[in-house]
């Protein structure tokens, strides 16, 4: 079986976010980049399947410029067999999904896994667009994935509960914990990462129609107001007139 795992190259969760060029670009200076945490779960599940199903290969794919290669090599260290980097700045979801679909078509993968969302722009739609472009099912957020023959049993998180599905291969899944335990690469993996194939391909041209106007940081959290437990009137008043949530 051929599995494609799409990974994002995103700022570490503790990074301090800054913008440059008059707030039109993200400033990566001093930021440490990691594999998207949700993608990490997807990758871990793919590796588990590879370990339990002989003849399985795992390819990782990233849409990004050359600086994402250390992140890709980390995925190789964790256990993927080879990698593809689509040499382009991942400007928006439609663009990224188009690139993934293009590579997925060419590679003939039976399972396309990725995180439920990236943790930089968090659009959470790439899996659906890829599914649509390829004309195959897409499911997200998937918490459990068990393969049996040509179908897979999935558990998906829904509002207030879980949904159990059966999907036939090939399909796209946006993954989240606890689909697998995230993996730390072992020393052998780290040392073999640089010898595994990492293919760089040029992007296909896409009319995505999306352009970034400017970035803005969220407003800092205001201070907490303490209200005495028996002063419900004041609480309602504040929720209505100050927080404007009622």
């Amino acid at each position, binding site marked *: 079986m051929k599995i494609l795992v799409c990974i994002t190259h995103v700022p570490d969760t503790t990074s301090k976010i800054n913008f440059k060029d008059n707030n039109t670009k993200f400033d990566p200076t001093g930021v440490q980049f990691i594999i998207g945490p949700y993608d990490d779960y997807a990758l871990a599940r793919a590796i588990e399947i590879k370990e339990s199903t002989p003849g399985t290969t795992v390819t990782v794919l990233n849409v990004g410029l050359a600086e994402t290669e250390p992140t890709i090599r980390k995925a190789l260290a964790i256990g993927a067999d080879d990698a593809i980097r689509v040499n382009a700045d991942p400007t928006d979801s439609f663009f990224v999904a188009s690139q993934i679909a293009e590579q997925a078509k060419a590679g003939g993968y039976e399972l396309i896994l990725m995180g439920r969302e990236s943790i930089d722009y968090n659009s959470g739609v790439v899996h659906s667009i890829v599914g649509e472009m390829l004309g195959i099912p897409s499911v997200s957020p998937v918490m459990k994935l068990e393969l049996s023959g040509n179908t897979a049993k999935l558990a998906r998180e829904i509002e207030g509960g879980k949904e159990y599905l059966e999907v036939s291969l090939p399909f796209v899944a946006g993954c989240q914990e606890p689909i697998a335990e995230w993996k730390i690469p*072992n*020393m052998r993996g780290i040392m073999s990462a640089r010898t595994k194939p990492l293919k760089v391909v040029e992007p296909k041209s896409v009319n995505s129609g999306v352009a970034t106007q400017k970035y803005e940081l969220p407003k800092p959290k205001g201070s907490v107001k303490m209200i005495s437990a028996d002063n419900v009137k004041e609480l309602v008043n504040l929720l209505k007139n100050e927080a404007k949530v009622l």
Partner: protein
Amino acid sequence: MATATETKKAIRGGEFLIRETEAHEIFIPEDFNEEQKMIEQQCKDFLAKEVYNRLDEIDSMKDPKLMPSLLDKAGELGLLGTSVPTEYGGFGMDFNTTMLVAEVIGAGHSVAVALSAHTGIGTLPIVYYGNEEQKKKYLPKLATGEYKAAYCLTEPDSGSDANSGKTKAKLSADGKHYVINGQKMWITNGGFADIYIVFAKIDNDKNLSAFIVERAFGGITMNEEEHKMGIKGSSTRQIFFNDCKVPVENLLSERENGFKIAVNILNVGRIKLAVAAVGGSKKTISTAVNYAKERKQFNTAIANFGAIKHKIAEMTTRVFASESACYRAGQNIDDATNALIAGGMDSAKAKLKSLEEFAIECAIMKVHGSEVLDFVVDEGVQIYGGMGFSAEGPMDRAYRDARINRIFEGTNEINRMLTIDMLLKRAMKGQLDLMNPAMAVQKELMAVPDFSSGDDAGVFAKEKKALANLKKAGLMVAGAAVQKFMMKLSDEQEVLMNLADMLIEGYVAESTLLRVEKLMSIRGEANCQIEKEMAIVYLHEAIENAASAGKQAIYAFADGDELRLMLLGLKRFTKIDPYNLKEARRRIANHVIEKGEYPF
């Protein structure tokens, strides 16, 4: 290429005192490549996933299987095989990469101790001294953690004086076994180890021999776990050998070679301990800085107060300095090893010889690293204030766990004396020319003082002149002490401590200066402003400490005109231009506070 190798080969242990090293010659942590950074992250992930969330559980020792299971997990990740050659199932990594692993794991409290005892003093005796059969039999299992190892040197009456141990080994009548009898104590990993490296004297030998002892051989009993001040989760046992039958083929190296093994293995242990202390210190700084940012008094975060900034800057600067010197020495060891291997030496021998060559630096770093760590945890407690003293806060464990580092792997007192002892021995053997530079200093002392503050051109010109003078101060005081006491210098331990302090400060200050100089040549000066401040601040402190130590020493053995002349010389050689250290520390602290962690 050949020239480069030869230049590197030419660097000798202890030579820093009389040789001007250039920035490009040293390795700096910023030189680590992508693969090494991935290994660094791997170790951090291991601690985050398996260790930090169960520190209390580990320290409680309620589950005796927990620590061995953590070592198993480390083994699965390959962390136990970094120094084991590839042909025996390890990864045969270069020394500085194994240092990097030791640094990160060093923040792992009791787990760090268990892991480093296993991979260091437990495994390395076989790596370096084992014969082919021994290596084949034991190393693959030690590299994966299937076998866990401990090192049995210390006895109730034999600590720093290691060769005085009473444990005996007797050849059995059939000549097939050594029968070991005796008692060992403070044995790290003792409770669960499968393999013990045991030091004992055969018959009435003067010197120790070393044996590979399997727990399965029988004749081994042990006391309950020791109750300790810190590293409570690390198994520490007293072990008794009662007619423990060890096959003769398990004698490690040659008869009576044990003391040499013990000493050489400790060289590695020392520098690894230093770099592990750097790792522990970095984590403590990050924790303390975050608390200082959160904790509000007088309506502002305490991180905004100058007194706290002073602490943060001091903690950071000293760790940066220690780190600079550790990896500089680590690379020296790697370079020396590679040169010896290129010259046809077998790799285990080459490593040993290189470690022995840089034994002075290993001892220097052991003292420095462990004392910086103790300083850092102490200030960590202070920044936490009342919460620092509470056993509920994170500083309690950091403070208690740090303390052992000044005691094991040779106490800091022993290590201080060793640095001077080794230096003088090398001078006497003609391996290191201390005589001529010391005479030159004497001559300079009698001549008209040089009032120039150095060639102002070039990076750190003034600082380098001050550093060169600091070394001269050391040579002056050491030279005079040797002349005064001759062979009896070893009885003057107080003076030896002073001399060691001057030596340590010189080495570490130089390493810091060179690291920053190299960094500036890579990144540009504008991008290394904080590092530059740290190099200058550290140099000032080093000079002040050396001046104080030098004065103590001079007072101890000189009088009259000689005393006056030496004090004048000391003053001249420990002169440095004034610098606003308060502002420099504030800039350092502000940077660390902004980043919210040790950022270098």
